[in-house]
């Protein structure tokens, strides 16, 4: 069924954001699951702003896991250091310090996990410190540094609306659906 969409004057002139590949910028999503100790990276969403990113992340990534906390952060605010890369550029050691959140990915293929936060003068300083504090044993670890201020988090007071509605929807799991005998092994 289709309906005529009214055409408005000047519509062709709409310009979206500053990115060229997609309409909206990318946001990285971190979920802490029920019983989980830390926020874990859960891929990304595209959204026009932080609020939309948070709601989109809820719909995309909390359907199959029981989340209790949700963070989104602009992808552009994430600095990633890979172990085979050169040492991160050092920041001015005397600069103003801000709080940074550190995520560590222990092996390729695993999701980065929130390790903690530390004060740093910039991304390079944050990563250098994080390597000392959080990456003592795992040689292959990569480090993500995010300014704490760039994180948009779900308000715990809104947990009922954000997280509870998934609990009674068991059809969100593939195991809800019975596979007819004729299908055999899938």
């Amino acid at each position, binding site marked *: *069924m289709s*309906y*005529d*969409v*009214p055409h*408005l004057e*000047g*519509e062709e002139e*709409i310009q979206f954001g500053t990115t060229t590949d*997609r*309409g*909206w910028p990318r946001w990285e999503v971190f979920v802490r699951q029920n019983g989980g100790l830390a926020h874990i990276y859960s891929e990304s*969403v*595209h*959204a*026009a*702003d932080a*609020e*939309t990113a948070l*709601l*989109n992340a*809820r*719909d*995309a990534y909390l*359907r199959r896991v029981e989340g209790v906390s949700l963070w989104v952060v602009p992808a552009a605010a994430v600095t990633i250091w890979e172990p085979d890369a050169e040492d991160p550029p050092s920041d001015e050691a005397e600069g103003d310090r801000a709080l940074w959140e550190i995520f560590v990915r222990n092996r390729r293929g695993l999701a980065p996990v929130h390790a903690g936060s530390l004060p740093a003068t910039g991304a390079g300083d944050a990563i250098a410190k994080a390597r000392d504090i959080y990456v003592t044993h795992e040689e292959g670890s990569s480090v993500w540094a995010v300014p704490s201020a760039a994180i948009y988090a779900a308000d715990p007071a*809104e947990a*009922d*609306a*954000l997280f*509870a*509605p998934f609990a*009674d*929807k068991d059809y969100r799991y593939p195991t809800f659906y019975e596979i007819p005998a004729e299908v055999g092994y899938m």
Partner: protein
Amino acid sequence: MSDDLFRYLLRLADDNLILAQRLSEYISSAPELEEDLAVANIALDHLGVAHHLLEYAATRDGRSADELAFTRPEREYTNVLLVEQPNVDFGHIMTRQFLFDAYQLGLWEALSGSDDPTIAGIAAKAAKEATYHIRHSSGWLIRLGDGSDVSHARAQQAIDALWRFTDELFATDDLDVTMSEAGIGADPAGLRSLWESRVDAILAQATLHRCNDPYQRTGGRTGYHTEHLGHLLGEMQWMQRAYPGLEW
């Protein structure tokens, strides 16, 4: 009395069933994949509420919940006209959703205190979902209204087109009176002032305004629908009509 409860459950269910179908039609057409997920998710919430209400209604009727959902003729659907209005554009979809969310949030909050424990239970869960729905739809209305000239114009167009279906949300009939006096239902008229304050607050942020035209249409509660519902039902019902009793 049993028949009154049945009819009351049916109108609550139909609002959600028809809106779920409308939103589902839009899946794959949203501006971004993520928004498709959001719309699908909201549609599923409404479908879930309709399912619970129809299962309850079915205990007071010879028909099953599926039969109630898929085999009634158009005149027996008692949803409000607002939810059957077409998906003209994203602005219409979010405006329709917002106007309805603001109504349903108040409704579910009121029905959470129903003397009927099944209705109270469904309402308590639905209120959580409605809290999320209105956060999503009001965010979009603000973004569109306070956005570009084009998005503002489209959002105001949607308000103007849909405002005529808002009086019906709060029209009280004999059934509403009976059910609210029995402590089971909520008198729609009593939900209006909260709805107006919620709607006006968001419209102000969105730099939008109420429609100036006082014209209003009603009829959904007695089965007199706009021309759009028949087409919606044609698509929604054809499989059960073609293959009665079909199950996955």
